[in-house]
């Protein structure tokens, strides 16, 4: 299955909702009124993009089409442009799907360090495995560091993945300071002359201040060993998450200045529309999406494909 198909499949539900509804709601020749706008708002809210982003789209529609006779193509154009505009932000962070590694900022020399964070149960470890595989396929040598020393059997979980992937892993016993695991991971990366070191962290809720400070410390310790690191600070976000995703992006962003989001679990019926709101408010771009439970189910995020998959058959 090609990238486009997979993405479309993952977004089937949202697409159905949006497409059928737009056609049902706005028949050519009808006049767009408040009631219809309201019904459309419902569909937008349901994608979890939040009140603010939905309102932005509705206002756009209002301004351009309210009280006029409806031309479906025009409305399509408006919605598509608005969503892509919201997701692209200033346009500096769009990547070429043909170059799957383009979202990652690599170190100029020596190993590139990727720090992966997120709240509990969003799929950090699985995303790391997928990312490692992704990098391996593209000819990079990867070292993993099992920095989740808190949750029971988290280290084992990543170890099992590393065995399947056939890559190096650095582990420490449960309860070790995660910063020291990160440090050893960097050491190992230098020693083996690896291209990428991926560091796992324990899931933490963004309201636990001390745990967020721990992240800052990990980041600091990495920079000591490998100047300029961690080069990528990714936040893994569960696509089912609602408006709390904004708070997650905000707090993790404050702690480690996230460079991007991995949107996991996009293969269910949830659509992760909250990334629109996050992009709008915090400017953190989505870099990769998880579209399944298999190890290859990781794709580069592309706003246009994302929005196109919402609207085209």
């Amino acid at each position, binding site marked *: 299955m090609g990238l486009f198909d997979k993405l479309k499949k993952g977004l089937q539900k949202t697409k159905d909702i949006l497409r059928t509804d737009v056609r049902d709601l706005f028949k050519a020749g009808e006049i767009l009124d408040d009631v219809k706008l309201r019904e459309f708002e419902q569909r937008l809210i349901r994608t979890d993009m939040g009140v603010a982003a939905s309102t932005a789209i509705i206002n756009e529609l209002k301004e351009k089409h309210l009280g006029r006779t409806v031309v479906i193509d025009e409305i399509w154009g408006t919605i598509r442009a608005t969503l892509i505009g919201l997701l692209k932000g200033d346009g500096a962070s769009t990547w070429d799907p043909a170059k799957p590694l383009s979202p990652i900022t690599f170190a100029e020399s020596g190993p590139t360090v990727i720090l992966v964070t997120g709240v509990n149960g969003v799929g950090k470890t699985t995303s790391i495995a997928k990312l490692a595989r992704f990098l391996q396929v593209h000819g990079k040598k990867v070292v993993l560091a099992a920095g989740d020393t*808190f949750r029971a059997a988290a280290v*084992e979980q990543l170890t099992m993945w590393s065995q399947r992937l056939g890559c190096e892993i650095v582990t420490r016993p449960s309860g070790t300071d995660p910063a020291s695991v990160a440090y050893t991971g960097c050491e190992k990366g230098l020693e083996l002359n690896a291209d990428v070191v991926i560091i796992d962290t324990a899931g933490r809720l963004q309201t636990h201040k001390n745990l967020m400070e721990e992240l800052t410390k990990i980041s600091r310790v990495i920079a000591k060993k490998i100047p300029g690191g961690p080069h990528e600070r990714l936040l893994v976000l569960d696509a*089912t998450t609602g408006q709390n995703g904004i708070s997650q992006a905000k707090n993790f962003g404050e702690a480690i200045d996230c460079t991007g989001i991995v949107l996991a679990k996009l293969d269910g019926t949830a659509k992760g529309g909250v990334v629109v709101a996050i992009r709008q408010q915090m400017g953190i771009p989505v870099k990769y999406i998880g579209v399944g439970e298999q190890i290859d189910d990781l794709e580069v995020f592309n706003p246009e494909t994302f929005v196109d998959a919402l609207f085209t058959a």
Partner: protein
Amino acid sequence: MFENLTTSLKGALSVIGRGTLTESNIREGLEAVRQALLEADVNYDIAQQFIEKVTAEAVGEKVLKAVRPDQQIVGIVHQELINLMGPVDHSLHLRRDGITVLMMCGLQGSGKTTTCGKLARMLKEQGKKPMLVAADLQRPAAIEQLRVIGEQIEVPVHTEDPQGNSALKVCQNGMKAAKTAGKIDVLILDTAGRLHVDKQLMQELEQIDTKLQPDQILFVCDAMTGQDAVNSAKAFNEALELDGVILTKLDGDTRGGAALSVKAVTGVPIKFVGVGEQLDRIESFHPERMAGRILGMGDVVSLVERAQQQLNADDMALQQEKLKKGQFTLDDFKNQMGQIRKLGPIKEIMKMIPGMGSLVDSNPDLDAESDMGRIEAILSSMTPNERENPELIDRSRRHRIARGSGTDPAEVNKLLKDFQNMAGMMQRMANLGMRDRLRAVRELADGGMLNPNAEIHKTKERSKRGGGDPIKLREDKKRKRKDAAKQRKKNRR
């Protein structure tokens, strides 16, 4: 948020003076409520239905004289939310004889395995003999995770090799193992997380359901779930007929609208909530607290409960006595501060108190945590004798304390002054009744603390004469004194 809601309600409802609430005069107000619900992740349709219901409820009600219309509407909304999320049923309906089977199900990463451990621990504390079954054969090391949890809480865990095995078999063998082990009275099945659209895996659950006939099927739901909560809950409920819901990860700042959505589509009670990663962090679900949370109101009840758990009651009573007599010393102050800090980050605590939430949001720079840290450092740098008799502290002692705590002598001085004021205020408060005391706290919040010019780090204002630079001023004064002395000498001659 609650403050936002009330302000927008106040604006929208200011036109209603007296008379009754009508559909048109509360429409704008309820729009604010609707937005608040959507922001809290309540499903769109459910929010819509809810608003219609509240409108029906509110229309025709007399505007009460005693309360403002916005308060009245919030009251109605709050009550309706409680009605919707209730009634509560915290029981797991354990059998009197034989083995009760509890089955956990949910999406990936909702917290099933941890919740299994929490439930087992809770049951064990109630004198039951639980056993866990690791039926999650999908995720790497999930079995290992449950085994470690079992060890931590000393509960047996039935595990099998996942290779070529099926979850159904593991559950059946687990049942057998429980029977042969004897004494086991609760069997908890930890199933793999799955998407509700995955037909094959949902069938697997149905098979376990028909073969093992679990007494309770519990749906574990992440409290941070957004609009999709209705879809997954509905699908799981249709496949399995759920008996209860457990809401996890409520220790974050999520407003938890998913609770309302899940309850509305499944109709089954929410039994427990998970409030932390440690295995003892499970609590019974309370609709009134959740309603407050969804609306962004304070949660005083939880605060009080937490206080009761954490604070030493005897200690508090003793201090209360001392307060009344006016014998409150810096030592007591230090103890009390330590106790308050046990409750959690100050900002979190403040958010739980109605009226204080806005204070936190409107002063993002207010770093109560480090302020308290400094105060503690100052107090710890005093000798016990000094804490008992603060009037002992002279210039030299003050300098020593400042050096010891890494602060400024002026800060030490300020603390002592503040303490004097506070001790007086607290003594007055200690002699008030509960009701008056609450009012006093309110007044403090409204007047004193919300006033940006109040005590928090006030910089000294210089008089018009001085140029501002304190060093230069001091030297000027010195010079003038010298000159004056010279002058006096001259005059004497």
